């Protein structure tokens, strides 16, 4: 039973073999992909993406969406950077300030989307634009010259790991625990599947996604602060530019459905790793700039294909070991049952 079970796991996460294949390919092509320095580099660079992709994934699972994270990231970076440079702020005060800024954005998004009930797509596209303007207004010039206290945030080693990686791990573990170990985790899925049915089951259908908006905002701002600390500088106009698309891409490539109600954190972590390895490998191999773009685009299409294949492979893997078990997976043979937006 163990072999087919692990086969099913693999089928469920087709990114795993793909990532392995990429690693082998890049190693063969460059001879320097698999090496603790390069791998740690990928992990450190991907950490900020993971820190935001994880709460964003919970939000998508609950049927919502936050596009404003790119600007919240900038706002967090500006808040922390400003306090660190202008006021010689210490680590704690800078982080708290960034978190407060992120919570504020999250609260606005959450209020408008969950309490009032406006479209998350338009609202967070709006806050994406507006918050970027505010961040640039607050810090039109690049901020630099942070103290050593603040440098710790991005530069320290925690348990042998670079602090961004350690923080990302913490976020993954906490979110994973919430999602799988607590009742709220089930509520997140339930709301995403059917808000009405969840409401009639007594689930807090406003509070839970509201909290997820808060968490996403806070962690996006924290990610900005971490990156500011790593880089030792903040430029409000470009910090986190396009980050929202990177986050959404990681979440979707990781197998979370935009329609809500399905997805796993392991998938999202794999999605983040996939994007990080791709970017790293293409640079390592030395693919010309424009072809890198083409390759990245194609990789997304491939990832979409994997998301499509996964349930089918899983169904195939399921057929043998337990032919008669009830297991109505998504493996419909006709396209009509697929939701186009998922």
């Amino acid at each position, binding site marked *: 039973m163990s072999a087919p079970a692990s086969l099913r796991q693999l089928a469920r996460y087709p990114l795993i073999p793909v990532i392995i294949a990429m690693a082998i390919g890049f190693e063969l092509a460059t001879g320097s992909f698999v090496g603790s320095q390069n791998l740690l580099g990928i992990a450190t660079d991907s950490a900020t993406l993971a820190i935001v992709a994880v709460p964003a994934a919970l939000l998508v699972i609950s049927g919502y969406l936050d596009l404003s994270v790119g600007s919240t990231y900038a706002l967090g970076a500006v808040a922390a950077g400003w306090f660190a440079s202008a006021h010689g702020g210490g680590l704690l005060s800078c982080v708290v300030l960034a978190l407060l800024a992120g919570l504020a954005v999250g609260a606005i998004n959450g209020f408008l989307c969950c309490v009032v009930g406006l479209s998350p797509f338009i609202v967070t596209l709006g806050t994406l634009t507006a918050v970027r303007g505010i961040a640039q207004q607050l810090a039109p010039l690049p901020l630099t010259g942070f103290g050593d206290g603040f440098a710790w945030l991005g530069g320290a080693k925690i348990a042998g790991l670079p602090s961004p990686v350690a923080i990302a791990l913490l976020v993954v573990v906490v979110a994973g625990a919430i999602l799988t*170990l*607590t*009742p709220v*985790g*089930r*509520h997140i*899925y*339930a709301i995403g*599947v*059917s808000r*009405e*049915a*969840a*409401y*009639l*089951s*007594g*689930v*807090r259908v406003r509070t839970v996604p509201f909290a997820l908006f808060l968490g996403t905002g806070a962690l996006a701002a924290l990610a900005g602060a971490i990156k500011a600390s790593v880089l030792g500088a903040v430029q409000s106009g470009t910090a986190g530019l396009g980050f929202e698309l990177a986050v959404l891409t990681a979440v979707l490539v990781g197998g979370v459905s935009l329609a809500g*109600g*399905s997805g796993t954190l392991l998938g999202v972590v794999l999605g983040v790793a996939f994007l990080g390895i791709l970017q790293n490998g293409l640079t390592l191999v030395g693919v010309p700039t424009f072809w890198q773009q083409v390759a990245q685009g194609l990789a997304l299409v491939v990832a979409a294909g994997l998301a499509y294949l996964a349930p089918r492979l899983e*169904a195939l893997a*399921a*057929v043998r070991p*337990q*032919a*008669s*078990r*009830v*297991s*109505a*997976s998504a*493996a*419909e*043979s*006709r396209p*009509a049952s697929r939701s186009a937006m998922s």
Partner: protein
Amino acid sequence: MTLRVTGLRKSFGGVHALRGVDLTIEPGEVHALLGHNGAGKSTLIKALGGAFTPDGGTIEVAGRTYDGLSPRQSIDAGIAIIFQHLSLVESLSVVDNVFLGQEHHRLGVVDRKAQRAAAATLLERLGATCTVDDRVGDLPMGQKQLVEIAKALSRDPVVLILDEPTAALSSHEIGALERTVRALQEQGLAICYVTHLLGEVERLADRMTVLRDGAVHVSTSLLGKTRRDIIEAIAEPPTDLPPRAPVHEADPPQLLVSGLTGPGIGPIDLAVRPGEIVGLYGLIGSGRTRTLEMLFGRRPRQGVISVGGRTVGRSSPRAALAAGLALVPGDRARQGLFAPLSALDNALLPAQGTLSRFGLRRRRAERAAFEKMAAGLAVHPSTPDAPARAFSGGNQQKLLLGRWVNGILPTTVLLLDEPTQGVDVRARHEIYRVVRTIAAERRTAVLFASTDPEEIVALADRALVMQEGRLVAELSGDALDEDALLHAVHQSESDLQEYLS
């Protein structure tokens, strides 16, 4: 023109929904396709409608043999289907739905005038009250069902297949539908009719084919068959229901409602005592669903509701649940089920918080609770991890019942809206048994709405009859029978008194 299905096979993942089914439907006959929930009836019908390609077997229609049909081929071959889960597009108008995919057009432009006229004629023939311009999503279920039928008939079919067409209809509309079916039969159509309501089978059908677990169990003429024969063909005969719980007149009411008022509803006063099962009977649209939803806080309301002597304050499902009220909604797909989530999640979602310790779920306790619930309600299969969508309709309904009746949540008043909609004879019986048992053992007060007078009589201690948002009659004891109910909904209060005396 005959429809002949030979050796049809279809499996989903590991589930064999059809294992070589043969079925022949002759022109001019009404052929009942029967079977327990999950027997494969809808799968067979979907294969005929082109929803998917069968894994094996052939379909012969209009002299041609197909390995699989596309919906267009199916329509072109003259097969018209009324699917169990309606294939209507809610945001479009009635007329647009009737002609969807088969629009009348001239030079590529939709001929609205011709379509409206044709649709109006069809609707009139079916006794529908909606107009051709109504948005289908705004219509009550019964009217939607009639639009679906109009859509099928608009195609001038040679084979008409109806998958539980009356599940959401009231006696009035069922009568109109049965007359239409008869007229079509006389015109020589081959008609295949799926239902769990055996009364319909007796009234309408000439032959029956009974599926069991994806294979044909019997296929025979209905001449001389009794209801008992039919039930036995479908499933193991059910055991007897447990006796009714004694209701003590002296007990203070568990649910006391006074002056309940909302848009189009009320004022309503009612009381349900501990252990009492009260049926709410009425025509489609009479306001039963709205009443239950107001009681549960799903709709804004005025009036006083008290549970166990305590007034329920806020109007919200959470407040209602906290007070001990629970609702099993009528629209299972939209309001009840979390289709992709596991059976355990579906049954225990609200209970997980109660079972948890230090904010963490206790999986072992959850599993134990699920197993207990599944055993008590005879949920099949009893696998906690299978997604709810893999369960048959009856078992899905049991999962929803189990959401509130699981020994963990302190439910003292259970509101049920159409609790056996689309449920097979045996499962219906089991649901009755479960409801009776909780009323008897836990003294839960039960208020349920139903469109089926048979069901009211079988389950209720007392029936309240609803008309246009008000309670117009109360029947209990010997006065509670099907005829009285039918009279009550169609007639005014004084007529009823006359009839009863």
